[in-house]
């Protein structure tokens, strides 16, 4: 964890649950290492909620290492990769800087910010993958030489503060949830002790120091060419762009429960060290703060993700899969979401199986990969729930119902998870069926204080539950037998009932989309063989190599006429003509 030791959040928390549903490790490890759990938007509807946890960096690392050691077929080799072993556009392994070749049926590249990474602090420029670690220079060059379209992106991190030099007790508290909710569907209880975060603010004094120091900002001097994320600006960006504000919130988050390091969330910066120290000390509670490590901006290579199939295999080098910041994303969760799709497909590829694609309608991971591979990026890509047209169905609470069966078919889900899932699924379905069977007359319903119209029409328990003013507890009063239903099934069924009208419409949209766009196209299709396409569109399609009609439709410059031709072609191929 190079940046904030936190996992989850709005949109991101959903991704963690999706990874967990496919039996990825992130959620379970975060549960072991989490020191403050909070469901964001807890007061809003289930589709708006995102689980988040503050993580103890060391515990997380240890949990992950321990867990990985239990995988019998996994060997871990530490070394610097210099190049891909590559022949006629297909990779068969990697070459290390000590001259060794590691051969493989498929390679997954997750280089983070290490490809030709450069750290900026003020006017200082340090070649590094992250602070204190060497970048991957030769691998970056090797990939560029292979024809990967390289771009530069920028991200930043704040200084780390020494906890005992903070006047901690005078600051506003930000406690975790009193009833912490784990990430993993398999985690029963959380055993790591919980901590509190604190909140402070930048002041007019802070902004003055920052304005004075802007002349030395690498953003201003032109030293940084890569685009940084608009949604995660440095404090100098905030001050320049929102100069009218008299302060910005800063969250002080402990990096662990037995460490002295504190992460000040909201003041990422690349100003010179002296300026960092000065502006930190203008904030309440931080008057005597000591900095353990200075903040910095880092620029690194990424490759245009439109050069990837939605399986995350490269179109340029076969059997090579890319995931994470090399694809222009930011965030541990986004990286891990791609990692599991790339990993599953790499395993399928090397064992000769068919590759798989996660659709937009199946999960936020699918939304992300579709966005990346069809539209590319102009800034580090982060997940927001508003990126999905299916927000109401892609919830953190139902990630397992959406994806675990998919994982079971792929064979990437353990028997423990599969059997827990089958229980939960059965309970949920049975409860939903039961609620559809139970019904009551308006008179009976009204006698329980539920204000339904007296029209003589019996309403099912499910219909009642869809109302805003009815909760599961009301149903239990009407049908005491329902109190035997498990909490997980109750919550699932209630949410689906409350969203039913909208979910129905979305499901209709999904099946319409599938009916129109699901037809497959071969990635090796010679578009010159389809009469009627313009040369321009032909060239674009040859370059994009869409796997489905839907992907073709997302190709820039696509016309209705060309879509009609492609559809007719695809259907003819499907019919075997």
């Amino acid at each position, binding site marked *: 964890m190079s940046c904030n030791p936190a996992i989850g959040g709005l949109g991101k928390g959903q991704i963690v649950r999706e990874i967990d549903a496919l039996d990825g490790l992130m959620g379970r490890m975060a549960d072991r290492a989490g020191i403050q759990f909070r469901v*964001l938007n807890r007061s*809003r*509807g289930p589709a*708006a909620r995102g689980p988040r946890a503050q993580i103890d960096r060391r515990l997380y690392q240890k949990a992950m290492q321990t867990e990985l050691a239990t995988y019998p077929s996994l060997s871990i080799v530490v070394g610097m990769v210099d190049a891909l072993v590559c022949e006629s556009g297909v990779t068969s392994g990697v070459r290390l800087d000590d001259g060794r070749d590691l051969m493989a049926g498929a390679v997954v590249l997750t280089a983070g910010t290490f490809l030709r990474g450069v750290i900026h602090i003020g006017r200082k420029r340090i070649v590094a993958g992250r602070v204190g670690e060497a970048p991957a220079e030769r691998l970056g060059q090797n990939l560029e030489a292979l024809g990967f379209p390289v771009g530069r992106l920028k991200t930043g991190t704040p200084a780390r503060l020494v906890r005992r030099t903070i006047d901690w007790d005078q600051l506003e508290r930000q406690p975790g949830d009193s009833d912490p909710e784990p990430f993993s569907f398999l985690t029963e209880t959380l055993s790591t002790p919980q901590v509190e975060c604190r909140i402070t603010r930048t002041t007019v004094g802070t902004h003055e120091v920052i304005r004075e120091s802007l002349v030395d900002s690498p953003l201003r001097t032109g030293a940084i060419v890569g685009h940084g994320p608009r949604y995660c600006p440095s404090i100098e960006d905030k001050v320049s762009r929102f100069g009218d504000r008299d302060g910005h919130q800063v*969250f002080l988050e402990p990096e662990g429960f037995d460490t002295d390091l504190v992460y000040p969330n*909201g003041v990422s910066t690349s100003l010179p060290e002296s300026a960092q120290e000065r502006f930190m000390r203008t904030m309440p509670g931080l008057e005597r703060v000591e900095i353990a490590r200075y903040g910095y901006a880092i620029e690194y290579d990424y490759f245009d993700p439109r050069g990837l199939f939605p399986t995350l295999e490269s179109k340029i080098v076969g059997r090579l899969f890319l995931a994470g910041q090399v694809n222009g994303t930011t965030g541990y969760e986004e990286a891990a979401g791609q990692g599991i799709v790339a990993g599953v497909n790499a395993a399928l590829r090397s064992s000769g199986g068919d590759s798989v694609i996660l659709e937009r309608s199946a999960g936020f991971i699918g939304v992300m990969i579709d966005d990346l591979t069809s539209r590319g990026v102009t800034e580090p890509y982060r997940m927001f729930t508003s990126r999905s047209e299916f927000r109401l169905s892609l919830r953190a609470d139902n990630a397992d119902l959406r994806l675990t069966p998919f994982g079971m078919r792929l064979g990437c889900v353990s028997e423990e998870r599969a059997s827990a899932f089958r229980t939960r699924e059965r309970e949920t379905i049975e409860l939903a069926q039961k609620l559809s069977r139970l019904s009551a007359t308006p008179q009976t319903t009204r006698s329980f204080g539920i204000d339904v119209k007296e029209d003589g029409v019996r309403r099912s328990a499910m219909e009642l539950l869809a109302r805003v003013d009815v909760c599961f507890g009301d149903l239990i009063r009407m049908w005491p037998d329902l109190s035997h239903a498990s909490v997980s099934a109750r919550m699932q069924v209630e949410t689906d009932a409350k969203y039913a009208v909208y979910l129905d419409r979305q499901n*209709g949209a999904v099946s319409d989309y599938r009916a129109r766009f699901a037809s497959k196209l071969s990635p090796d299709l010679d578009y010159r063989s389809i009469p*009627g396409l313009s040369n321009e569109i032909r060239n674009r399609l040859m370059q994009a190599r869409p796997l489905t009609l839907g992907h073709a439709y997302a190709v820039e410059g696509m016309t*209705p006429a060309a879509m009609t031709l492609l559809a007719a072609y695809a259907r003819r191929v499907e019919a075997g003509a």
Partner: protein
Amino acid sequence: MAESDTIFALATPPGRSALAVFRISGAQAGQILVKLSGRVVPEARRVVLRAIFDPDSGEKIDTGLATFFEGPASFTGEDLLELTVHGGRGVVNALASILRRFDRVRPAEPGEFTRRAYSAGKFDLSQAEAIADLIDSETEFQRRQALRLLDNGLGHKAEGWRRTLLQISVELESVLDFSDEGDVGEAQVKELIARAEELRVEILRTRDAGVRSLALRNGFTVVIAGAPNVGKSTLFNMLAGSDLAIVTEYAGTTRDLLSVDLDLDGVPVRLVDTAGVRDTLDPVEAIGVERARSAIVSADLVVRLQSGDVDSCKDGSSKDLTVWSKADRFTPPSGLMAISNCDLDSIAKLVEAIRDRALSAVGDGSEGMLARQRHLDAMTVSLDALNRLKELCLSDRLELGAEECRIVNAALGGISGSFGTEELLGEIFARFCIGK
């Protein structure tokens, strides 16, 4: 609007014709014929004669020819029924309203038959090319039409609405996606409710003006009413410029509605002659009187004739224009517009009065361009969604409010001619003529 619905459309041009062909496509096509005819589904691709009944009342509608095509061997690839009936408006309307009453049966969207055919892979490459050409020309047409709309203000207006809506969405989504950032506050919810209400009021105003203007496009309906023998048919013939109505000196000559479409100095008007309203024992005349009454109710303007030799009519309403006829023989009371068929100037004055009434009914005319039903439907969809949006935001169900925003966005996108992703293919086919 589900793909699995059974759809129907009139495959022949609307209006008067000797025969009218209905096309019905979808899983229920066969069952519909069973219910309409009370007989089993005929052998596929064989033309059969069938009496057609209203399945609810049992009333016979017509006798027609039915051909059943079993999917996938049909134009759309689905079960398809072609029903040929007589072309009178009564038969066509009755059949359409019966079809509409079936569950999961609805009128086809523009181009939907072709889209279904396309979905079923019914085109070979050469046909697809021809269709592609057609789409291209339709796209060009659509583009030009969108430009024209822009020139005429509605496009600009819709773009403005979209920008407002964007602001609303921005507020909503920021609360949903960034509530942990500290800089996003609850005040935004109030702000967005206020904006949504402004937007709703503005769309409502435009929609209502559009409804009036659409009515004008379809013809401003002017009904000539009055006691028997007051001279309604004489006036009708003079305005129509030909002897369409039989005119005699006998009261009760006109027994049915007669109508003619006129262009009154650029304003399209549908002029309707009615039977004189009186109590009568003659069953035929009684039906005519009943029809006259309902024509008066649905009219945009009623020219109510009075004169010296008949009882003046007691009922009347704000849409009445009271006119004294036979002014050459009976002196009109002061203040009342008077006409005489000997005095062409008096007729010209009446025409002008009718035209003024028609124009003022339409509003100031600047909003007259949005007379397309498709636009009005889009506005209605937006209004409903904005109403729900407000309700949802007030009860803090923002994630559902966001869904309503998507609905409005999609609907308004259809007006300004620039579409979002999901609706695009639908729009492509919407440019095809119904029932192709």
